[in-house]
């Protein structure tokens, strides 16, 4: 059935778009991120459903998406290189007093975002940070300097 192809294509395309739109820095999805994800998801699902409002169509689509998802997850586990492509790798933003400005520009991350993560750990200034790492899910990990000032 065509619905299966649409569902698989739609899901894969959405995964690609979310990957390519970029990691939003920060631990939580802000309401705006949520709306964006919802908007993109909704736009993707409407052609899957099309004019067919039947229950069997809905079940087919959901099942197709679930299967595709599991296949991707399994591929990630089996082939780490694929995992890198799908999720990306952690990236260093701040290293011992030096901002990796080019990385930050490329990822559209501001130093404000890093400082917000630092404040969450109770730090006040950049010089208290030894490493700041942008994780694959957008969270920023802060490793404190061992000499507390």
């Amino acid at each position, binding site marked *: 059935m065509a619905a299966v192809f649409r569902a698989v294509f739609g899901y894969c395309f959405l995964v690609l778009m979310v990957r390519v739109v970029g990691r939003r820095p920060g631990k939580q999805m802000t309401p705006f991120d949520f709306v964006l994800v919802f908007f993109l998801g909704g736009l993707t699902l409407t052609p899957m459903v099309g004019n067919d409002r039947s229950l069997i169509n809905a079940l087919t689509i959901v099942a197709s998406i679930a299967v595709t998802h599991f296949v991707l997850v399994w591929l990630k586990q089996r082939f780490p290189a694929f995992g890198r492509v799908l999720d990306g790798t952690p*990236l260093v933003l701040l290293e011992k007093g030096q901002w990796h400005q080019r990385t930050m520009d490329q990822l559209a991350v501001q130093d404000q975002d890093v400082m917000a993560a630092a404040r969450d750990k109770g730090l006040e200034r950049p010089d208290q940070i030894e490493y700041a790492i942008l994780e694959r899910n957008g969270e920023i990990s802060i490793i404190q300097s061992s000499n507390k000032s």
Partner: protein
Amino acid sequence: MERSASSSHQTSPNGVPAGREFSGEIQTIMASTTINKPVEDSIAKVNDEIAVGSDPDFQRRWLRFEHGLWAVFTLIVVLDLLGFFGRGYMAKGTARTNDGTLDVQYDRVERYSTPSIMTVQFGPSAIRDGKVQLWVSEGVIKSLGAQRVVPQPASSVVGQGGILYTFPATSPPFSAGFQLEPTSPGMFEMAMRVPGGEEVRRKILVMP
């Protein structure tokens, strides 16, 4: 350094990504057949110090890929705005017969299950005995999914690989409209003519 023995994608307490997958279940039986791997230095380090697992080569290549992808995306959006994917300026097409019987306004590119209108204008030579007859090929009805014909034809006769419509008419100008809703993606041919007149035959692409 604390390491949690749980599986792959969780971060251990100090925020550094944990190691590669190995069995994390609590081993109640220390059998020689259990699968355990010693903690290896499997994550790439930065500064020989902190195990981040970033790969600058990969990142560079990925960024080049992303830039290429965005160029393609921008192109797609531009093409769509111009109408190359249907529903736009570039997709509009006109087909005229030389004997002036037919003038068809149609979309060269259609979209699957999306309503659109094809308009057929008749010239004065098409009107005979107060009525206009139009033969339309099967492709228009089936593949392009003609839903309605406006105005309602007086009669429709199936034959010759299509349908022959008869419309009562008085004087030109006169046009009929077909409401289309394509039933499947692909390349389809449509043909129509006034009996005794020249035929108009065109290919229409239906996007998925």
